């Protein structure tokens, strides 16, 4: 479903950082992949390259056979099929919760008002905040906002969902409610790529865990392999630091 081939990316400002060095990864439909690694390891950059929010210097990303990084590709059509959830939610503050979820359905999918509303209400009950439909984003808690953001992405009926540290900006007591929604999605067979520091989530839900460091994939494997006896010293060190 997703095929990443020899992806490289270098940031030059403020100084040279090789964010991705010859990264290759392939993800099957229905697979849940959790990407972990220390900060600056390139995991967010990898995720953002998947829907061309970041352009790579070389390499290819194929989603359902479409070359995402090819300038001739209609990127808007690709992005409509790839949902993304951000660390800082990025809800539209000038629109009510319901309108946040219907906007792209109406504008991009060209759905009728009724259809978009119906979809939005269904998704809001799915993420458990139907009663907040008429509220503005800044009237919601962080956890609620992130759940709205997930509903907004799901409203497009994406084939893949990308999560970029979805719980990192949340207060600890709100992390659970967001992870719960993500677990439900995973159980329903959604293809997911999650960059996260939630090891419990990785262990419980991931089909595969990818450990990145210094812009490269160090090790990849099942959660059992990963958390029980990883191959690489670097992985062991990271896990010992993060799990204490």
């Amino acid at each position, binding site marked *: 479903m997703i095929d990443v081939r020899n992806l490289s990316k270098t940031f030059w400002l403020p100084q040279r950082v090789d964010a991705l060095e010859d990264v290759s990864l392939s993800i099957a439909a229905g697979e849940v992949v959790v990407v972990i690694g220390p900060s600056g390891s390139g995991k967010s950059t990898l995720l953002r390259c998947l829907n061309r929010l970041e352009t790579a210097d070389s390499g290819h990303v194929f989603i359902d056979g479409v070359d995402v990084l090819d300038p001739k590709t209609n990127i*808007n059509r690709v992005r*409509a099929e790839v949902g*993304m959830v951000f660390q800082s939610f*990025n809800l539209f503050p*000038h629109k009510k919760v319901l309108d946040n979820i219907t906007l792209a359905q109406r*504008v991009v999918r060209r759905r009728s008002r009724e259809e978009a509303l119906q979809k939005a209400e269904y998704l809001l009950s799915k993420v458990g905040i139907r009663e907040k439909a008429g509220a503005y984003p800044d009237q919601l808690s962080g956890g609620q906002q992130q759940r709205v953001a997930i509903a907004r992405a799901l409203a497009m009926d994406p084939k893949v969902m990308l999560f970029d540290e979805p719980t990192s900006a949340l207060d600890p007591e709100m992390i659970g409610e967001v992870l719960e929604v993500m677990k439900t999605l995973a159980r329903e067979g959604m293809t997911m790529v999650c960059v996260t520091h939630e090891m419990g989530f990785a262990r419980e839900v991931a089909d595969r865990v990818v450990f990145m460091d210094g812009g490269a994939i160090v090790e990849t494997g099942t959660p059992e392999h990963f958390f029980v006896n990883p191959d690489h010293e670097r992985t062991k060190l990271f896990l010992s630091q993060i799990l204490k």
Partner: protein
Amino acid sequence: MRPLSSPPILKRPRSYYIGAAAFLAILFGLVAALYVATMQVDYVWRWNRIPQYFVYKHKIELRAEADGEVETVDARGDRHLITLKGDEGPQIIETPAEGVRVSPGDSVYAGDILAVEEHWKPGLLMQGLWLTIKVSIIATLFGVVIGLFAGIARVSKNPAARWSALTYVELIRGSPLLVQIFIWYFVLGTLFNSILAKNGLDQIPPLWYGVAAMATFAGAYVAEIVRAGIQSIHRGQNEAARSLGMSYPQAMIHVILPQAIRRILPPLAGEFISLIKDSSLLGIIAIRELTKATREIVTVSLQAFEMWFICALLYLILTFSLSMCVKYLERRIVV
């Protein structure tokens, strides 16, 4: 604990009252100094002559066209119809009841006053004020449209759009408005009007060159305000919109601009307040706005002192009421 039902009465320190008194003293002192100075040059203040420049009674005298006799004076509602049997045929005059100066049977000579009609008319100052308001509003509307497009072009990735907008903004902001008005009127105006005349078309009056100069001038400043507004919206907003599959224009229209406009409004209003004041320059291309009207009245009446104070006061009223409106808007929007 002390109950908090009523706020504590704050006693202001003595220095506050001394300061307030000093302020009043300075204000009074300046006015007194001005008055004394005008006494030295024997200036006679005639404020009573000012109102006629706001509104005045316009008198129309209706006269007999030829010798003859008044036949009838008929009441038609609050108007009267005077029928004159003249030597050169009948003459019928319609006039308000209170203006009739003749009665049936009177004989009149050619040129005699039959009736006087009086109308209230706006004076030169009112006409000038109205023109200032009109020019400001039209220039503001065009300025916003120009500025919005130029501002969006300023943040565009396309070099043609970005550099054009940048050149426009730098050219306009780098030269005096007075010079731009001259260019619009004497250079572009001459070109346009000559070409129009060659093709047998009507000339464009100076007013529109003035409006064009003001609108392009304001547009450049509005463009910078719009650019700043767009760039102040967090990058994540654009990323979220684009990640949902929206195109750049769709993200602009539905996500970025609605948020930017709320932030733009206060500085935009400041720009329009200066536009009102800058319109005073239009007098130099024969547009009789408030300043030009004042200058004409001064030339005729020689009451320079009163007139220029009145002129400044009228601008103050315009700008102050606009800034009050904006304060109200700000309070409603920025919550």
